[in-house]
């Protein structure tokens, strides 16, 4: 930041949006209505795999208030196929994905037919009158079985369940050695499983399509209104300029609304067929069944090291469950992790291979962290294993391998250039906050006394790549779009400021952070800034919000737009003050003549002068507006150290988090309260993966965790107090210094918790507990000591 004074940036401002959000004055999609609105309900398959013999919707049509009913067969010619924007390899197997199933069901909950009625209850009632004749087939559910010779196929016409294999090899890429050619005094082989998760956003997905007179207005609870508009145009043949997409207030996403959904397309088809606006709001059960899922992969790792603890190489093989189809960015999600398995360390050699596999399950797509939590989990788990193997403290083994402060910028074995970081500083702070040494002593005492409640300490020293993403790199990775971001700043005649941003907040607090940045850049009051977003009519361009990109990319565009405005205001102010622009300095919220600070004009003064336009310098247009679009050169790399202490009741397997410390370095901080909130929420979700959440299918392919009774995100009472602190190493690659914080907590916390549990149980010979580490699993891991069944291969 080069604004001369920073009054707002760095201040713990209360969030502007919260008054609206907590007093029920929000505009959730489901709260909106338009004249003539109809309501749609969707009939979903009870089977995971079946042939649809016939669908008869005629009886539904005669139910009260029903306006229309149709099935996949009725729209087969017009519905097209849902997009995958990230076909990661040239020869990827990419099956069609009809919004409504036509003749084959490939996962439990797939949409089969719809009813549109005058009210929602009538539409739901009438679903019961639709008759579907299914011929159930045997589903394929297990990842390794799906890859085996002769397996049942999810898409028989493709001849395989293998979608793609994507490889990175440091020797081939020229970024490091061959994993087979490095010192291997110690070899560790482990298998970890990332269970399937369901993004549990608060507001279920909802969409309204108003067909107007061929000029469509669409409200959707989405993270990606801009991307959605492009795909609506491409998929429905509607000219893009006849489509307006609005993401009103959106109640969370976590990646789960980074999608072009079947429901959005089906609602569109219904509205177009009927010629009236149609709304569809899913039930929570539908979210769980048919909203996309996350993670779900098997990770095999082989790590080589010297006896002094220096890791020489790491080789990672993933089998990633795509589900029944490819999601919008599903194939690319594990690839986002490909550059992160080396973590914060200096390894000589690295090989990564990911195989994407089809199964008869709901498809997977990004979930908070997308690829990076998986990578961090694996490397941080296996670094602990190495420490145990070598009899070293887990912190020490990490220190011996991580990049030192003075070594930045550092080109990693995965080929990324980390611009900055200070892993020692963050770790030292975290150790002090946790009281690491005292807890280790207590652990010794408990071990010595055979206390039934054992103590464990888990470490996670993470980094991640944020600010998605440099468009050139996305192109090289075969992603269909770019990664730039845009902002417009317009100063109104009275000095108030409207900002239009291309990102699309859904709970993060952008309105607040953006206002703080603008306030400092233009010397205006925080409350005089209005941030507009999420409506393609006001914000015609943008790439939306995911991948911790909003501030790290969109924030830069905002600063650049502000500076264009400020430069112009400076010219106008100089004209008003009858001096040269070079004689002015911008301080205390105004342009002041150097040496005569009372001779001053504010941006608001310039704005009114521009509005009147009576006396402007030659060649100055009478506007005080500017746009900027920023395409990052590189990613940003927040990092930090999370430490977790757990108490494990060895009699019941119950795990209690005794203390959790998160020291994060997210670069420059715009609003510490928002950063803390992001860390808290992220840590909660990471803990949830470690201890609580898992989507489970039974052997028939039925999702048995179909509600919050079985799928159990933690409530406040399930979570520990989280001690947060920061170090601040600004990013050097752009003018704002920020690095991104949206996913950090989730990425860091899962391995910290599991490492702590395993650490507590080391005396019992336990080397792994599969996630989520439920009490029963912990208890079983303890009981299995001495047998070969727990902990993978060695």
């Amino acid at each position: 930041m080069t604004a001369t004074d920073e009054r707002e940036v760095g201040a713990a401002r209360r969030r502007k949006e919260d008054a609206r959000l907590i007093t029920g004055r929000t505009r959730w999609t489901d709260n909106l209505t338009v004249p003539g609105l109809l309501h749609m309900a969707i009939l979903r398959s009870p089977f995971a795999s079946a042939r649809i013999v016939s669908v008869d919707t005629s009886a539904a049509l005669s139910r009260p208030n029903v306006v229309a009913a149709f099935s996949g067969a009725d729209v087969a010619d017009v519905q097209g196929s849902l997009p995958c924007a990230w076909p990661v390899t040239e020869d990827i197997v990419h099956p069609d994905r009809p919004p409504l199933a036509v003749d084959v069901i490939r996962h439990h909950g797939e949409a089969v037919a719809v009813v549109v009625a005058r009210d929602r209850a009538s539409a739901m009632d009438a679903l019961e009158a639709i008759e579907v004749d299914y011929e159930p087939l045997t589903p394929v559910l297990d990842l390794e079985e799906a890859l085996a010779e002769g397996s049942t196929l999810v898409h028989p016409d493709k001849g395989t369940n293998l979608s793609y294999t994507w490889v990175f090899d440091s020797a081939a890429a020229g970024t490091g050695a061959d994993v087979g050619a490095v010192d291997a005094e110690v070899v560790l082989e482990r298998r970890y499983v990332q269970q399937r998760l369901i993004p549990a956003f608060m507001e279920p997905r909802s969409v309204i399509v108003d067909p107007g007179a061929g000029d469509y207005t669409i409200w959707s609870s989405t993270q990606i209104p801009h991307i959605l508009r492009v795909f609506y145009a491409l998929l429905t043949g509607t000219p893009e300029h006849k489509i307006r997409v609005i993401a009103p207030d959106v109640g969370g996403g976590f990646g789960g609304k980074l999608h072009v959904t079947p429901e959005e397309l089906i609602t569109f088809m219904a509205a177009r067929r009927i010629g009236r606006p149609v709304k569809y709001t899913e039930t929570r059960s539908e979210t769980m069944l048919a909203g996309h899922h996350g993670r779900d992969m098997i990770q095999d790792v082989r790590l080589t090291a010297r006896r002094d603890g220096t890791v020489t190489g790491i080789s990672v093989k993933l089998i990633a469950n795509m589900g029944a189809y490819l999601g919008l960015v599903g194939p690319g999600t594990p690839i986002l992790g490909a550059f992160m398995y080396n973590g914060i360390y200096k390894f000589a050699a690295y090989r990564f291979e990911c195989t994407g596999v089809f199964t008869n399950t709901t498809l997977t797509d990004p979930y908070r962290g997308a690829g990076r939590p998986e990578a961090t989990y694996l490397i941080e788990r296996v670094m602990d294993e190495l420490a145990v193997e070598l009899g070293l403290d887990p912190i020490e083994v990490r220190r011996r391998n991580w990049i030192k402060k003075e070594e930045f910028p550092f080109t990693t074995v995965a080929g990324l250039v980390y611009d900055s970081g200070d892993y020692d500083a963050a770790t030292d702070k975290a150790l002090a906050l946790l009281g690491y040494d005292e807890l280790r002593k207590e652990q010794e005492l408990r071990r010595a006394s055979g206390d039934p409640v054992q103590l464990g300490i888990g470490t996670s020293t993470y980094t991640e790549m944020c600010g998605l993403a440099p468009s050139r790199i996305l192109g090289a990775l075969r992603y269909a779009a770019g990664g730039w971001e845009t902002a417009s700043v317009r100063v109104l005649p009275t000095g108030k400021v409207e900002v239009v941003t291309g990102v699309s907040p859904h709970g993060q607090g952008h309105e607040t952070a953006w206002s703080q940045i603008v306030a400092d850049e233009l010397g205006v009051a925080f409350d005089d800034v209005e941030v507009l977003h999420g409506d393609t009519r006001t914000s015609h361009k943008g790439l939306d919000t995911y991948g911790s990109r909003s501030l790290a990319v969109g924030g830069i565009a905002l600063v650049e737009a502000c500076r264009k405005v400020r430069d112009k205001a400076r010219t106008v102010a100089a004209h008003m003050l009858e001096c040269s622009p070079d004689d002015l300095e911008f301080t205390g919220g105004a342009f002041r003549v150097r040496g005569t600070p009372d001779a001053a004009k504010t941006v608001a003064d310039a704005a009114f002068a521009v509005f009147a336009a009576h006396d402007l310098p030659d060649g100055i247009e009478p506007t005080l507006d500017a746009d900027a679009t920023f395409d990052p050169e590189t990613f940003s790399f927040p990092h930090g150290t999370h430490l977790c202490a757990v108490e494990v009741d060895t009699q019941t397997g119950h795990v209690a988090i005794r203390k959790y410390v998160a020291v994060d370095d997210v670069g420059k901080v715009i609003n510490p309260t928002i950063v803390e909130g992001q860390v808290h929420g992220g840590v909660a979700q990471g803990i949830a993966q470690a201890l609580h959440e898992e989507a489970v299918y039974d052997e028939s392919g039925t999702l048995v965790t179909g509600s919050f009774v079985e799928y159990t995100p933690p409530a406040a009472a399930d979570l520990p107090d989280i001690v947060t602190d920061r170090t601040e190493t600004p990013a050097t690659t752009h003018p704002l210094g920020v690095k991104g914080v949206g996913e950090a907590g989730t990425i860091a916390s899962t391995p910290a918790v599991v490492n702590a549990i395993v650490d507590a149980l080391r005396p019992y010979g336990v080397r792994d507990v599969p996630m989520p580490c439920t009490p029963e699993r912990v208890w079983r891991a303890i009981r299995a000591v001495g047998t070969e069944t727990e902990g993978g291969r060695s």
Partner: protein
Amino acid sequence: MIPVAFDYLRPASVDEAVAALADGGEDAKVLAGGQSLIPVLRLRLSAPSLLVDLGGVAQLRGVREEGDALSIGAMTTHDEVASSPLVRRHAPLLAAMAATIGDRQVRHRGTLGGSLSHADPAADMPAAAAALEARYVLAGPSGRRVVSAADFAVDLFTTALADDEVLVEIQVPKMDGWGSHYEKFHRMVQAWAIVGVAAMVRRTDGVIESARVTLTNMGPTALRATAVEQALAGCAADRAAIEEACSVAAEGTSPIDDLTASAEYRRHLARVLAGRAVAAAAGV
């Protein structure tokens, strides 16, 4: 989801409620706090044509002292049970158990009568009622009858209540002089018990004179761990002796195997938790 459409009545007295149920026949159902019934209706697992809401029957709510017992109206909420000075004084086990139910919202809507009538094997209140040897007052078209806790709980989601009967009140003998404790083991703080063990102990000096131990979610209904109770009678009030006595806690149980926990693990938990509950109740 949205329930199938139903008719709704809100009578002002027990007699009106019973009459409405009798008129409504098999398709009529009582609505108390709705915390179990509404989820069932929303998922369309049940579609009654008439709901008789007891929320307007003032006489069904509250705790009264009646000699050696407390009389608790069926519509008394879990929160009211948990915070009632009378219950806390004379049946602290019941108050403690009510306080573990679900979350704040659930405790403010859900009722003692609803929980007992619903007879979910994972519910906490039936184990409390069994330990306290509570008696249930039922009102039907032909008058009132009193049923013991043991006779009221018939099976999974099945009680002695006839379709046209209303549970009116629960009579709980005062248990002054007994120590009590509930060990509820759950995955999430606000969730149902995987296994729960309620214990009441009366001890003289270092000896357990008499004990009652009941189990939540170890079978189709709340169970009394009679083998443990027998082993505890006359047993020394020390940890080792108690644990030994509680090693038979899973005897005669038939816990389910489901997503939350295996039957084997539940049996193990019953033994561990029984030891802890009894020790705590005995002040060890």
